[in-house]
């Protein structure tokens, strides 16, 4: 390439990929926004009527599903954080030369299909499956007890499926912390709890932040777990969007819901970023 055109190189590198993302990510979003403001039906075709009324309408109709999705996703985020932090800490600080093997063991289950894993949980938690069945045989559980089709089943499924997304960023953040800092805190008469709370925990916040986003975002939009492990009473907003799009072909309502979900996610992420005070989101 001639020297005076060399400044073009990065743009030539960027253009094909960015064009793909623009055409198949940005433009669909715009199309979805436009469809949400249209009226009509699949048979007669749609016309853009700037029908903003669809937004309050879908929010009112599907408020329970919205609320449920947010509550489930927040519970799942907290659950993965509580379950994942000790593991990430243990692997980072006690893993020794088995660090990589332990990490691999944590993510290995994810080499199988998400759907098959979730179906396996359905099998494990079935009323006469080997967990509930055994507990019932020993008389520990009431014979009528069941887990499937309850919020607990859906939340457990989501927690299981997204746990590695929490553990990996936590591990990366904790692994980076210089052990000398903890030692220094202890030398200065901090108790182990204090050293953890005042040194390790604040320094691992970027991991907490990244992990929470990586869990919360897919969890809030998920419909697979609610579909396989849940019931009519555990329907999440993802189930509604999927049903409206694929079964009822109610495109304007479905698009409006998609937009509200996207907006809700962005607002919550912004608030969370403000509260945690992490700027690491864009730095990674």
């Amino acid at each position, binding site marked *: 390439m001639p020297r005076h055109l060399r400044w073009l190189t990065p743009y030539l590198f960027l253009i094909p990929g960015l064009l793909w993302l623009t055409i198949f990510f940005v433009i669909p979003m715009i199309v979805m926004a436009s469809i949400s403001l249209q009226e009509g039906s699949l048979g007669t075709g749609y016309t853009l009527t700037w029908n903003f009324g669809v937004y309050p309408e879908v929010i009112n109709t599907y408020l329970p599903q919205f609320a449920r999705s947010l509550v489930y996703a927040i519970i799942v985020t907290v659950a993965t954080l509580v379950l994942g932090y000790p593991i990430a800490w243990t692997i980072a600080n*006690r893993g020794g030369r088995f660090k990589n093997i332990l990490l691999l063991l944590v993510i290995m289950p994810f080499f199988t*299909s998400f759907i098959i894993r979730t179906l396996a949980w359905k099998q494990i938690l079935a009323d006469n499956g080997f967990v509930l069945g055994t507990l019932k045989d020993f008389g520990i559980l009431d014979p009528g007890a069941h887990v499937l089709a309850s919020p607990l089943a859906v939340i457990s499924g989501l927690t299981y499926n997204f746990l590695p997304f929490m553990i990996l960023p936590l591990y990366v953040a904790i692994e980076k912390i210089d052990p000398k800092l903890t030692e220094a805190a202890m030398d200065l008469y901090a108790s182990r709890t204090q050293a953890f709370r005042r040194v390790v925990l604040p320094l691992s916040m970027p991991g907490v932040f990244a992990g929470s986003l990586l869990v919360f975002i897919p969890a809030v939009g998920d419909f697979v777990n609610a579909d396989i492990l849940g019931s009519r009473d555990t329907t999440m907003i993802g189930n509604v969007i999927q049903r409206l799009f694929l079964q009822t072909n109610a495109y304007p309502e479905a698009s409006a819901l998609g937009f509200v979900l*996207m907006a809700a996610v962005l607002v919550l992420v912004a608030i969370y970023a403000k509260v945690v005070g992490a700027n690491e989101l864009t730095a990674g």
Partner: protein
Amino acid sequence: MTASAVSATAAGQQSAELEGQPKKHRTPTGKRLLNASLPVYTALLVIYMFLPIAVMIIFSFNDPQGRQNITWQGFTIQNYFDVWSRPDITGPMLNSLLIALGSTIVATILGTFIGLALTRYQFRGQTPVNLLIYVPMATPEVIMGASLLALWVSVDVARGMPTILIAHVMFCISFVVVTIRARISGFNRSLEEAAMDLGADSLTTFRKVTLPLIFPGILAAAMLSFALSIDDYVITSFVSGQTLTFPLWVYGASRLGMPPEVNVLGTLIFVTAVVAIVAQIWWARRRAKQDRLIVDRPPEFAPVLPRG
């Protein structure tokens, strides 16, 4: 042994010494309990993570009587032979493999170039480029799928293999960029400068120095893309039309009762993935060892060593 492990043992000895003294500074019981419980907890969690996998593998050897493969009926390996004569399962599997292969190749090429541009060049407009790459990763899949369907509906394009492929390339690109970027920012630029100083032109430098150095990153990115693509259910369900991929087929079949052949294919995918990852790690280790040898050995032996 790492520095933290050394300090942990040192702390352990210290607390053991303290125990014999009448005036204890701090009770070590809680600490010892914590030290013992953390590995146990880690082990339990690993077991928990593997529980569904174990169920999947065990029930791939089940010999169910009816449509349901939920209770244990008896051991058989017949399922591993029968699965190949079930075109309703192998067809979707083949579709999934083709889509994963195609989207991996396209996404890896597009993503690698973006990664190179972002790390090797200064240019105007870095912020919008970064935004365009990170926002798809922060978007719930259901929204990506829904908006793509909205696009295809509004321009009246029939859904099928091409629309699935397009969607998979789209969501893989960002992950490729992030993986490649992490790899490129880790290596020493002076190696490239040295090649240029020795008279290599920029293309030769790229081919002989840059590409071999970032190749592990490219490979990791390609493996990630393949894994993301072959497992995708949510986005695919929106843009598939009548085409079935393996996850779509499994999902549909699960409503009627899953045949053990699903477990067979799930097990085979799992085993293949584990073998691929272990091979990649082994290869990366060997390379690292070779690199170390080249540095450690006297210079006259260095050129004899084969380079990976």
